[in-house]
């Protein structure tokens, strides 16, 4: 035992950096994570879980003399602090954490605690729960490098690490990077040429402005919000029936393109229906929280799934806007952060007063995007026609009683005969309406009179849709659900916000609107940080806080805390102007660096957390598909509308108790729309999107973990969607790429990568073309298949063999690492 203890102490002493350190230990960043990892579960805010009466998340409690006369922490006296003894002892009866938990602090972690106690054991509020502080731009080693305050923070950090920023990326790379980041599409050749030939010093800033104005901007950023909103075109669970809520998705795209300030954007999604004089668009916006799932299986208890939806709304709201895992407090007090289970249900009660209950209702009918005027006109005509018809139908309806007595039931369709068997006073409205409609249709005086109403209704359907919305009803009584079980009702609660966070704005009723106001309140320490961190994550691949979903004590501390706070305060200062903030980020010198990585640089910082180079990541599932269609000229620019069915391999299976899961490919340009318009079925998501890490969208997802798998290679090599793109690319190369092999190869590179080809590349592609052509020449049937399936016959005058061989080249171009990545 002694020997082992010595070995352990030796390890402590020999750990690099263990020499006495006068640098003050930062409680929030260094100490709290250690306490959270090893101690807080049993010695934290949760009274029920607390062991031995010891609480370590609160200074006063932690330094108190315990019932045994000992003290866990004695400020200034590590030797008297029992916590250190317990963490390092080999006595299995007293060691902490208990061995069975399988956790043990490292010598370095023990050393940090020791220093912290020696320095007085000072506690501070967890950084994320304290308001952001706008620090002045720090001094840097090279004042000529920064282009805006972001760069001061980045370079100051690099200076501290004795690293240098990378040189600026070349202009081709930079424009493609910015276009992919801001619009999800590469620049067109014309855009690239315009930028390259623009010698003005602000050429890049203007190019960024132009990108931010493109309608494709909203489509690109909507994809991020669809993950947050757990959007789907189906209801989930076993039957997974279709859902019509795409009009909310269209609202989202438009709101992003209109650059709705983030505070308004937030308020409208959470509580647009409660705004005074709410417009239809503001009501549509509340579809955000109607993306929860329904269980339509026979015998399912509606209340159970309604409760689950409310839980999901609480968790999603706190996650998406405040990076807070309040979800942990659903079944018990939060083990690590200062949230109680009661507080969880106080927020729950805010959401527990909407009309929906495990079904699609309520919905509203609204014009499709851009059809507002047509809808208004048709609605008025329809109302007039309907009124006229109603007047006329009264007479016909007055004859129905006689008809019912006289009609031969055996000759009626079965459903109508069944209705007739029900006594008139017991029929449901739907039954009565069905009967009335049938009777009218058979009546000689009726014939043709409803033609106007039918025609106008059909025309209205063409310019409108229904969509799911939130609707407030009288609040349901809410109680703490014991252990999170909806039937175990504990203490009744009323709306409230967690005491550890900022208070609700005074004079505000705490309904959904009040909660939204609390979320976007300038004193909320989390909302702006979480939002800017998410934008940063989308651009740089990793957030300044890597755990973008968790800013609480269990999350990772920010890599650049002052930069995060500067961005958060800047966002608010700019009036929550998202496009403006994105412009600040993408015009920084940090963003404009080359992403080429040296061996040494990679070893030091594989994830580029220090930002000594520009961003680089594999494109998202959506961008990969959209880019392939765009560069080959197939992509439809048509925005908005019902979900589409691009090519999907036959599955040959029915849904459980349901119809076939296969779909017919959409006709015309709808087969080639941007990926975000693809019908999203939760039980069977589009296969190539799932292969590239799109979440199933059953719950809110704050970041996609990008993977790199052989299944992905099979998608971009062989999926008919990508083969079709390669064929179309081949045809563009043949018609627009000049007459020589070299000019054609170079043209292909320029189309796909938005940059000139090197000579080596041209030669390699030309060689591939020739090898492919001679291989295919022997077998015209193979060549024809490769050039035309599935795209269709080549244009008149085009050589099929050429088209086939360029298809092979196009397939390679679409699979280049540079193509698949943003560099």
């Amino acid at each position, binding site marked *: 035992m002694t020997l082992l203890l010595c070995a352990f102490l030796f390890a402590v002493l020999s750990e690099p950096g263990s020499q006495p350190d006068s640098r003050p230990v930062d409680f929030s960043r260094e100490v709290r994570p250690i306490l959270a990892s090893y101690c807080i579960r049993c010695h934290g805010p949760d009274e029920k879980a607390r062991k031995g009466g010891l609480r370590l998340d609160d200074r006063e409690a932690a330094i108190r003399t315990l019932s045994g006369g000992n003290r866990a922490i004695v400020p200034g006296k590590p030797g008297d602090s029992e916590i250190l003894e317990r963490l390092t002892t080999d006595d299995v009866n007293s060691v902490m954490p208990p061995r069975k938990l399988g956790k043990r602090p*490292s010598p370095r972690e023990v050393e940090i605690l020791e220093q912290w106690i020696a320095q007085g054991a000072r506690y501070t509020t967890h950084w994320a729960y304290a308001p952001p502080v706008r620090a002045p731009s720090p001094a840097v080693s090279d004042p000529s490098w920064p282009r805006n305050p972001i760069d001061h923070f980045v370079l100051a950090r690099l200076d501290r690490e004795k690293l240098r920023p990378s040189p600026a990326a070349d202009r081709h790379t930079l424009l493609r990077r910015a276009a992919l980041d801001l619009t999800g599409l590469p620049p067109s050749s014309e855009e690239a040429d315009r930028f390259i030939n623009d010698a003005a010093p602000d050429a890049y800033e203007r190019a960024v402005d132009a990108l931010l104005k493109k309608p494709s901007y909203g489509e690109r950023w909507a994809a991020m919000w669809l993950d947050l909103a757990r959007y789907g075109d189906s209801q989930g669970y076993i039957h997974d029936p279709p859902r019509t809520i795409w009009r909310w998705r269209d609202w989202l795209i438009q709101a992003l393109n209109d650059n709705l300030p983030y505070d308004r954007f937030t308020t409208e999604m959470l509580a647009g229906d409660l705004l005074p004089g709410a417009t239809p668009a503001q009501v549509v916006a509340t579809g955000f929280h109607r993306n929860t799932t329904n269980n339509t299986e026979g015998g399912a208890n509606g209340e159970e799934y309604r409760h689950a939806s409310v839980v999901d709304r609480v968790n999603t709201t706190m996650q998406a806007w405040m990076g807070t895992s309040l979800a942990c407090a659903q079944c018990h007090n939060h083990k690590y952060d200062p949230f109680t289970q009661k507080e969880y249900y106080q927020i729950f009660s805010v959401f527990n007063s909407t009309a929906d209950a495990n079904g699609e209702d309520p919905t509203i009918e609204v014009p499709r995007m851009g059809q507002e005027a047509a809808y208004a006109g048709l609605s008025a005509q329809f109302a007039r026609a309907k009124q006229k018809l109603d007047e006329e139908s009264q007479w016909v309806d007055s004859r129905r009683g006689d008809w019912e007595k006289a009609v031969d039931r055996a000759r009626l369709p079965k459903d109508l005969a069944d209705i007739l068997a029900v006594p008139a006073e017991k029929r449901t409205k739907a039954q009565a309406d069905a009967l009335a409609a049938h009777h009218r249709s058979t009546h000689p005086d009726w014939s043709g009179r409803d033609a106007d109403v039918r025609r106008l209704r059909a025309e209205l359907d063409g310019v409108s849709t229904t969509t799911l919305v939130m609707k407030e009803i009288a609040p349901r009584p809410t109680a703490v659900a014991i252990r999170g079980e909806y039937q175990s009702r504990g203490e009744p609660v009323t709306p409230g916000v967690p005491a550890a966070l900022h208070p609700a704005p005074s004079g505000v009723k705490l309904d959904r609107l009040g909660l939204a106001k609390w979320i976007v309140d300038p004193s909320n320490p989390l909302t702006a940080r979480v939002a800017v961190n998410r934008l940063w994550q989308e651009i740089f691949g990793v957030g300044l806080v890597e755990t973008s979903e968790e800013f609480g004590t269990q999350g990772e501390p920010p890599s650049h805390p002052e930069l995060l706070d500067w961005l958060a305060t800047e966002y608010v200062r700019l009036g929550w102007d998202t496009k403006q903030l994105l412009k600040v980020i993408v015009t920084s010198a940090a963003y404009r660096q080359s992403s080429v990585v040296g061996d040494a640089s990679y070893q030091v910082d594989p994830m580029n957390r220090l930002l000594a180079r520009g961003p680089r990541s594999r494109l998202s599932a959506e961008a990969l598909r959209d880019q392939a269609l765009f560069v080959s000229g197939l992509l439809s620019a048509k925005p908005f509308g019902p979900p589409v069915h691009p090519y999907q391999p036959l599955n*040959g299976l029915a849904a459980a108790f349901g119809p076939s899961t296969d779909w017919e490919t959409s006709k015309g340009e709808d087969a080639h729309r941007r990926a975000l318009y693809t019908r999203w079925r939760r039980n069977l998501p589009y296969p190539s999107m799932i292969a590239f890490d799109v979440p199933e969208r059953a719950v809110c997802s704050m970041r996609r973990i990008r993977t790199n798998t052989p299944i992905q290679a099979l998608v971009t090599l062989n999926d008919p969607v990508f083969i079709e793109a390669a064929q179309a690319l081949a045809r563009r190369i043949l018609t627009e790429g000049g007459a020589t092999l070299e000019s054609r190869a170079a043209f292909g590179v320029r189309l796909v990568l938005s940059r000139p080809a090197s000579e080596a590349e041209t030669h390699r592609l030309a060689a591939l073309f020739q090898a492919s052509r001679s291989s295919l020449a022997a077998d015209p049937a193979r*060549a024809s298949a490769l050039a035309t399936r599935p795209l269709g016959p080549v244009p008149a005058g085009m050589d099929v063999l050429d088209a086939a061989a360029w298809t092979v080249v196009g397939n390679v171009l679409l699979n280049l690492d540079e193509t698949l990545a943003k560099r």
Partner: protein
Amino acid sequence: MIPQPPDRLVHQTRRHFLREGSLGLGGVALASLLGGAAPADDPFAPKPPHYPAKVKNVIFLSMSGGPPHLDLFDYKPELVKRNGQDCPASLTEGKPFAFTAAGATKLQGTPQKFTQHGQGGAWISAAMPRLAEIADELTFIKSMYTDQFNHGPAELLLMTGIPRTAGRPSLGSWVTYGLGSENRDLPGFIVFVSGGSLPSAGKSGWGNGFLPSVYQGVQCRTGGDPVLYLTDPEGMDRSLRRASLDALKDLNAPKPGEPIHPETATRIAQYELAFRMQMVVPELMDVSREPARILEAYGAQPGAASFANNCLLARRLVEKGVRFVQLFDWGWDFHGTKAEEDIGENLIRRCAAMDRAVAALIQDLKCRGLLDETLVIWMGEFGRTPFREGRTAAGPHIGRDHHPFSNTLFMAGGGLKPGITHGATDELGFHVTENPVHVHDIQATLLHLLGMDHTRLTYRFQGRDFRLTDVQGRVIKQILA
């Protein structure tokens, strides 16, 4: 006494390993491209278990719909005796049933003939003659129960540990995340669906949930490409594909003087792996390579899309080191709404192909010495009621409603006591009376046999450590050898 890295670091590190930049199947290829040491970052690299494993692989036979356990395994003479009598209200009161209203239900004795089999004397009905012959290889649990009486939630609970579509990883994803895979030319988690329908849990049954997507089950299909997009486009033969991958590799090489980005190196390796998969998988999925006597034993036919073929494929995959093979078979929901849902003669017909294939699978694994290192588990998401289903009580076909309160399953393979029966139900087969086993206990036991502690197999998501068994689950020690 080596200090363990704290869990926090373990999963942080794991998460970093999964970054695209450092993620590589085919670590050797990557290492040679980088000219350095092999990186320890292969998500499928076999990982050490928490403690010595009893089995390496799992074949999970999921009978979607809930087979009528009272007509297959859980013999209740008392129920036969009281056939047609009212079901005691004390049993059904306050309990939800999917298609039967409370009160006025009639007890339904089994129309099947039961006899005892093997040294262990297991009761098995005449609907399962082949399995009856190998009863001493099987470990029965007759005290299984669940919380859910609807298919969707019950199957989700079984497959993902939570009865909702909540973005949780499936059983097979947890296992491949925890243990990696033995075969780098194949996915570690492969799924087959038979019976013409997706299972009730939908794709969540093999989804990766919040785990990285490398761990999602790969659904192998019996028509078209066995794995989606496995086949080169029409007109592209193997040599042309090889030529294009060679060009791709050359073009992906960095500019002179620039080092290759590790992510690029990984991607090149993935393309090579995909190329190998294109050759290996079709061969593996081709059951015509099996001798006639094996095909005959399983009842498999080359080219057919059947549960029997899938059982045979499961063996072929396990033989190649695929960690987790999940079979879903649709059509075990015996309500009695039509002839195919009748638990009389029809049940014998319905069971025939399954009985034959499962018995052949277990025997085949045993002959090859694979049964000791494989766990075969057969079960539905819930049992069926001892009373006749309410809607169809007056109809021509006899059926039973969903029953969450008791069920029978069996397992076979390494680490188990073969030939035993664990747990029991009351004389009517309504409630468990002895050694209750919850769905989470099955999950915990499955992980245990694979060498994993279900309380330590965790993944951090949304700021919280999640596990398959949530806060429950106990290993069923009594059935372990």
